[in-house]
């Protein structure tokens, strides 16, 4: 079971922000994506934004469990915090592993790496999000997606 806190300005409104201790279970990951995408929809972001946000959550959570938690118990949860605002969506994903240096990830778009089956998650996140950064330890990914300009 995931331990979830969703917050809104009044107790009865759907949540635009949340903090979720996410287990490595498909149902829990789907529920998190639904909560964030519902907030994205309430704030009337375009359809392409929902695609981008969903992709970023999917890839970040997969990387956290697959790479961040390598060697850790499969029961370990990943912490996800999100906030959907009028101008931007912020999503932070923190694993409980030792962290990594994002500079060490090879560029999957180089000709010599094109046929390597893995290693595209972080690159896709960077392509779809407006800004991304890691904490110093390298176990927390901070993503920001800015609402596109109306004519974009």
């Amino acid at each position, binding site marked *: 079971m995931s331990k979830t806190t969703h917050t809104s300005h009044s107790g009865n409104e759907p949540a635009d922000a949340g903090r979720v201790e996410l287990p490595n279970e498909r149902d829990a990951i789907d529920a998190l994506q639904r909560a964030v995408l519902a907030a994205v929809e309430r704030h009337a972001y375009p359809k392409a934004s929902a695609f981008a946000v969903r992709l970023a959550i999917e890839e970040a959570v*997969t990387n956290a469990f697959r790479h961040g938690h390598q060697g850790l118990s499969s029961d370990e949860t990943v912490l996800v915090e999100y906030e959907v605002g009028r101008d931007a969506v912020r999503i932070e994903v923190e694993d409980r592993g030792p962290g990594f240096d994002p500079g060490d990830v090879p560029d999957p778009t180089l000709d010599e790496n094109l046929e390597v089956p893995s290693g595209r998650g972080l690159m896709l996140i960077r392509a779809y999000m407006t800004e991304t950064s890691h904490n110093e330890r390298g176990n927390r990914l901070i993503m920001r997606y800015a609402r596109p300009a109306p004519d974009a």
Partner: protein
Amino acid sequence: MTNYQSRLRIKKVDDVTRVEFIDRNILDEGNIQAIGEEITDLIDQETVPKLLISFANVDHLSSSALGTLITISRRVKNRGGELRLSDIDPQIYDVFVITRLNKIFDIHETSEDAIKSFQA
């Protein structure tokens, strides 16, 4: 595990095996692995596989699914066969472009176009 459940719709069009996904979202690691194994079995049934993978019903695709496609492509090539992809939603096609995987896959707009390209 309970009963084996196929995640694909498979149709033979002449000597081409056309595969379509049942799931709209190809995200779950377990499902992706099952899909990979099912398609690998299909490839191994043919002497010279001609495989068409249609994304007609697919809304979302993870990078793990892209990895499985690369593995499938290698297997088809190793057996001297051909692989085509078709019916890719524009948002998903962008993912192929961003990752430059549109350079290594033979992608067609429709299944019909893809099937014709095998016969050419």
